[in-house]
């Protein structure tokens, strides 16, 4: 979990400087009034930053978009990379961003000493020649990718616009690769830099990918630098994909360029659309060392004898048809329902494997042979089983689906599509169709299947929210309570609630909502199903408050976060009705006093223990039963007294007779004794 890998030195510690600057982690100072537009990264703004111990060190901070889950799970590994050819990531934290009056994540980097090498996607620069390209770009980037490979990381943000000059001389200054942690993997990459399948996916759903994605992006970057421009500039994303599908990436990018003969091999190797045949670090190193190895020719996909027209365009390859069907969803459904697709597969494509896969997709999708959205999603997978899931507008690689669901959570259609993907195991269907996918995608498909039962439960702590948080370690908690905060991991949850408690006092309606419950359920090491069940069954504020307090106490204990007196005070107020379980008023008062004392100490577990002690509850119940018995006896006594009052004359007569008899007996005894004594003496 990200919160656990975060070092102590990076523990959240934010203060606002009187000058308006924001101090981060007691080490860096970010200056909101000094934006650095030349270092902006897509929608993310860059600001000047300094290190408090070394003010001369040039730094900058990027503020990731809170709506986008950035790469918290790998950020600490990336920090360990110390390579002169990579913009160094120094620290990250969540800061009080005064200009927006909210908390935002911020990442601090060493500032490059020069401008971007390629200022904009449609820019033109002086074309690189072979030798400078190798010396200034390929060799340093090879070293960087080697460092990433050593830590089992991928960069996923290699593009010409993300290269910086580390000096002012555009010809001689070394080149540095920019950052890669502030967005989901590949999110900012224009489609041209992405492999065909990742290009088809939504930017947030491109997935972590693998080193092959980085080498493909390196190949595209090299092609753009050697051309001095983007060869596919001006084309729409869809046209870029269709051109790559029709010609292959190498041909689409390089055919129109004048490439030095010696470099044809490297471009063929890096831009190979077959991931397993694409060049990696070893082949690139060998090529740099002068060992010229001819890459395998890319196997062209089978083409149909006649095209299938979709959306007014003709398509002759299964992969392109799959993409076109997904882009023209309504028409795609009609083509599948009407049998035109089957006809084209049998008579036009004549690819037995694809035909069989499509038949499987149609037969397993629906038991009643109804061609619905799910069937079409399966058909698209069957036509192109490359790890891409397409359900209407939900388009994600298998490893990018949870991240896309997190980004698009507010969109009901996205949520439904992700839920359908999990419910009908589309990832499992995809990995079952081919053995060419990476092993981790098989593991992920199995993980999705395991999460499915949790997602199908509708109660609090489960559902789609639980699935997203379970499958996505980077997803911040999207509770409406944290609209002005950023809860990236479990360690930030309780402190965020503490800030909220300080701001709102005891005015909480619900301290745990569906998002917080699912977030805690997914991130906590202990099982909180009993608490979630109590939350589900809660019928009043108290029934809700106690399990909510228990969950937060578990979070505080697991994350060993700082004391939270304001939150404890709020929860103590919410737990007030819980004291009604204790019947003894003086015991309630004593526990209330203890709770107030514990609240000052800020320990939620002690607070819960004080109000929810089974031994004390049992003792209280025993004493209550004894009190009930005593009350019953007193009531009986009063009843008897009333009876005596009603029948007082008779009772008094009876008792007075007894008393008189007693007195008479005593007097007569004395008289008898006196008589005997007088008569006998």
């Amino acid at each position, binding site marked *: 979990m990200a919160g656990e890998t975060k070092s102590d030195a990076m523990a959240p510690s934010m203060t606002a400087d009187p000058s308006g600057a924001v101090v981060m982690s007691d080490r860096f100072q970010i200056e909101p009034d000094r934006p650095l537009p030349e270092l902006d990264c897509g929608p993310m703004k860059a600001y000047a930053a300094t290190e408090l111990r070394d003010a001369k060190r040039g730094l900058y901070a990027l503020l990731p978009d809170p709506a986008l889950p950035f790469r918290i799970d790998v950020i600490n590994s990336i920090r360990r990379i110390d390579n002169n050819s990579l913009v160094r990531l120094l620290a990250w934290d969540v800061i009080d961003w005064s200009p927006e009056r909210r908390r935002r994540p911020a990442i601090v980097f060493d500032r490059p000493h020069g401008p971007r090498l390629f200022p904009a996607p449609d820019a033109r620069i002086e074309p690189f020649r072979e030798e400078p390209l190798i010396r200034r770009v390929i060799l340093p980037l090879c070293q960087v990718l080697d460092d990433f490979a050593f830590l089992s990381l991928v960069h996923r943000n290699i593009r010409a616009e993300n290269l910086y000059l580390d000096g002012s001389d555009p010809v001689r200054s070394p080149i540095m690769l920019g950052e890669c942690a502030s967005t989901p993997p590949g999110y900012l990459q224009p489609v041209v830099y992405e492999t065909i399948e990742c290009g088809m996916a939504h930017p947030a759903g491109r997935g972590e990918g693998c080193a092959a994605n980085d080498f493909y992006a390196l190949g595209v970057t090299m092609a753009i630098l050697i051309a001095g421009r983007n060869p596919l500039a001006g084309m729409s994303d869809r046209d870029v994909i269709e051109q790559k599908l029709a010609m292959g990436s190498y041909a689409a990018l390089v055919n129109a360029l004048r490439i030095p003969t010696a470099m044809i091999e490297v471009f063929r190797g890096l831009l190979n659309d077959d991931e397993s045949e694409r060049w990696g670090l070893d082949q690139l190193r060998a090529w740099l060392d002068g060992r010229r190895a001819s890459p395998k020719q890319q196997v062209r996909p089978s083409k149909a004898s006649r095209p299938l027209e979709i959306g007014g365009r003709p398509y002759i390859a299964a992969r392109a048809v799959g993409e076109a069907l997904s882009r023209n969803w309504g028409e795609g459904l009609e083509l599948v329902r009407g049998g035109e697709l089957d006809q084209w597969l049998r008579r036009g494509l004549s690819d037995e494997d694809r035909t069989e896969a499509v038949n499987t997709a149609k037969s397993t999708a629906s038991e009643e042979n109804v061609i619905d959205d799910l069937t079409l999603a399966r058909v698209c997978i069957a036509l192109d089983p490359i790890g891409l899931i397409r359900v209407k507008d939900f388009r994600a690689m298998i490893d990018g689906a949870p991240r896309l669901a997190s980004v698009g959570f507010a969109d009901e259609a996205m949520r439904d599509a992700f839920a359908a993907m999990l419910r009908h195991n589309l990832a499992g269907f995809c990995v079952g169709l081919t053995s060419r996918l990476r092993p981790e995608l098989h593991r992920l498909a199995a993980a999705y299947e395991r999460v499915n039962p949790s997602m199908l439960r509708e109660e609090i702590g489960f559902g789609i929210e639980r699935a997203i948080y379970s499958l996505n370690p980077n997803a911040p908690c999207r509770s409406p309570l944290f609209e002005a905060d950023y809860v990236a991991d479990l360690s930030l949850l309780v402190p965020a609630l503490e800030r909220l408690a300080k701001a709102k006092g005891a005015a909480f309606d619900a301290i745990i909502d569906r998002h917080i419950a699912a977030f805690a359920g997914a991130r906590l090491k202990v099982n909180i199903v009993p608490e979630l069940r109590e939350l589900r069954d809660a019928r009043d504020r108290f029934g809700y408050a106690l399990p909510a307090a228990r969950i937060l106490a578990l979070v505080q204990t697991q994350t060993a976060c700082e004391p939270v007196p304001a939150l404890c005070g709020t929860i103590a107020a919410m737990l007030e009705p819980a004291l009604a379980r204790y019947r*003894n008023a003086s015991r309630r008062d004593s526990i209330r006093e203890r709770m107030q004392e514990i609240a000052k100490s800020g320990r939620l577990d002690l607070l819960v223990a004080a109000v929810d002690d089974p031994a004390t509850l049992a003792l209280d119940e025993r004493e209550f039963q004894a009190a009930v018995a005593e*009350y019953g006896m007193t*009531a009986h006594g009063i009843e008897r007294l009333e009876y*005596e009052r009603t029948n007082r004359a008779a009772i*008094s007569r009876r008792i*007075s007779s007894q008393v008189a008899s007693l007195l008479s007996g005593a007097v007569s005894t004395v008289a*008898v004794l006196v*008589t005997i004594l*007088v*008569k006998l003496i």
Partner: protein
Amino acid sequence: MSEAAERNEETKKRRSGSIVIWLLAAGILFAFYESIILMLVGMIPTGIALLLDRSPQKDQARSVGYLNFAGCLPWMVDFWMSGGGFARVFEIIGEPLVLGVMYCAAAAGWGLCFLVRPFVSTYLLVASELKQTQLTKRQTELVELWGEAVRVDGDGKGGGKA
């Protein structure tokens, strides 16, 4: 031994005991018949009290009887010390003073019953109020400490109302 047999055995014992008592009484009657005549005349008020007192304990009759007996005893002792005889019995009971003393003593016993009653009545009233105050106070304490639930549950167990 069976229960029926035990019961039979007990009945037999009781019968034999009452026979002994009757035989003893007959013996005493035969031996002290003069004294008994004196006592019967002297304790006529006690007999009347026994008839009037309907209570099972016969406390009023006892009250009259004890003092009536104390009033009779001096003449009984005189009778025994004078040697006895029917003539002496009739001599004693023929004196109005003697009968007056005997019957006045009985009347004192009766009077005692009426004299004690207002005191006892007042005592019972005060004691009852004190007791009720204590019980009500305890009930209030219990309700304050344990809430209304103790009243509801307690009334169920006690079968009454505070």
